[in-house]
């Protein structure tokens, strides 16, 4: 097998394979170095970074449901300055792409994050989390309003020359129209889906199972819905899609690629099996060999 048949291009980034580890489930990378060689990954996405440090939500922050995990971590992070000073040096030593996940409460915050990360050595791309409420617009989520999303992306696009990926929320009526406006705004790629808004109640204490009442559901339970949304987005846009949502193994990853994803992200799986991403890369290679497929690109959207 040739070495480059897993290669995938996302914006300016050429990934050695389509397997990326997703934000918030892979710490700052170093938590995984005892388990496998991180250089084998297609790319790593950092934990979400905001301009100022965030302390996060009160516990309990996680709750397991049937085949799923509800989390309300609350985007706890050390802030941009501390990230650049103390977390980035580790990533710089890796021979894989770093995508920095960013989020803000206002347009200005997103733009400033992009500007301050512009030209910083060791960063290949930005992934914008637009699932945060816009405080100025009365708490409407950026990612649920196509026009707001368009204007936000257009402004951030002007502030960065890095590969710009926009992470879409599944908590919308029409994922295709959001994906379209993000594409028109100038994004290089979209990643979807983020977690589904969810909750659970303890019937004995009559209290919510996570401190914040509402959290985000991830894991195998959401996979069929995420897959459907990737396919819908694939039919609507031309820029690459990074698919995610309950991918636990190579078979799941291939399903997303067939639905139209150029690359995939693994999240919850990393928590359960820290080697999940690396096993998925091996599994995809095996699938290509067994099915005599020369290049992974030929699989993208190739179903039906």
């Amino acid at each position: 097998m040739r070495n480059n048949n897993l290669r995938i291009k996302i914006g300016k980034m050429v990934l050695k394979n389509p397997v990326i580890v997703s934000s918030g489930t892979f710490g700052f990378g170093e938590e995984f170095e005892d388990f496998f060689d991180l250089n084998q990954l297609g790319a790593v996405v950092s934990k979400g970074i905001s301009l100022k440090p965030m302390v996060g939500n009160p516990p309990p922050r996680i709750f397991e449901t049937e085949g799923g995990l509800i989390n309300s971590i609350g985007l706890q992070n050390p802030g941009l300055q501390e990230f650049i000073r103390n977390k980035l040096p580790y990533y710089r030593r890796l021979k894989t792409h770093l995508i920095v996940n960013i989020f803000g409460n206002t347009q200005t915050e997103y733009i400033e994050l992009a500007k301050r990360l512009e030209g910083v050595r060791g960063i290949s791309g930005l992934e914008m989390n637009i699932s945060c409420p816009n405080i100025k617009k009365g708490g409407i989520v950026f990612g649920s309003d196509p026009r707001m999303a368009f204007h936000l992306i257009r402004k951030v696009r002007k502030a960065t020359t890095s590969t710009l990926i926009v992470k879409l929320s599944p908590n919308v009526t029409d994922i295709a129209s959001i994906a379209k406006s993000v594409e028109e705004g100038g994004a290089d790629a979209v990643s979807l889906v983020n977690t589904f808004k969810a909750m659970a109640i303890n019937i004995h204490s009559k209290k919510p199972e996570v401190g914040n009442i509402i959290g985000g559901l991830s894991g195998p339970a959401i996979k069929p819905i995420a897959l459907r949304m990737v396919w819908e987005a694939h039919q609507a846009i031309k820029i690459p899609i990074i698919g995610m949502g309950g991918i636990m193994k190579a078979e799941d990853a291939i399903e997303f690629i067939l639905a139209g994803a150029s690359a995939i992200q693994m999240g919850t799986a990393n928590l359960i099996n820290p080697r999940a991403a690396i096993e998925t890369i091996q599994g995809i290679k095996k699938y290509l060999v067994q099915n005599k497929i020369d290049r992974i690109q030929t699989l993208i959207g190739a179903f039906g």
Partner: protein
Amino acid sequence: MPSSSGRTSKRFMPFQIDGTVVQNRQIKSVYFILGIHCPPIANLIQPGQFIMLKISEDHSPLLRRPFSVYKTYPENHPAKEKRGCLFICYKEVGKGTHKMTTLQKGKILNLIGPLGNGFTPPPLPSSANIILIGGGVGIVSVYPFAEAFNHLKLFVFIGGKTKKDILCVEDFKKLNSKIFVSTENGSLGFRGTVVDLFLSQRKIFTEDKKYYLYACGPMPMLKALAGKIKSRNFIAQASLEARMGCGFGACWGCVIKTNHSQTPYQRVCKEGPVFSFKDICWD
């Protein structure tokens, strides 16, 4: 990030590795002992550290479960049949632990460990007085520490809801320890909580001596205890129980509020599970 208590404990690289079930037996009511042959972890794990265990290959339960280790036998242990084995004591409480009760001898399980920071022993050389307090299955977490410091004088307080919830008494009897037992319904020993029991014996612990206190149990128990051991002659550590996502610091799902100024929410799995009582925000 440094531990909130500023401790520097020796760090062993965690392994992700398979182990083989050597024993799975009910000891009383809803309590079971699971023995796993897994030399790399058995050789290295320290008192208060824990493992993350994948109970089933499918998604039910989805996440691993954390277990502190009850007894370990490194590969050079004299008892040949136990060499390279570790034992955990678990309580059947839900679907996951119910599934655990069905694990048969010979079954292969995937483990991650050793994880977390264990108990910090008293400074050496020491003739310190040691107090161990365990609520319910929590006593299992402090037992390995007692075994390691058997040469010191141990005061052990074991509490549970009923006599069916009192564990490890026979183990402690073999050590150089003075044992006190309480049950909330009075079916064994003192009637009340383990904290009430400790207070009832408070006069033993004089202010002119230093006491190293190690506790593990449910949060309400630890909180009640925190209010009673504020005097300076108690140097107290608690091993915390928390729902965990990963167990190795990646998800920030298991945090506890501490008095750390910049990062109040610290990870039970990484900075803990053992914290100094004074570092935890008990309000």
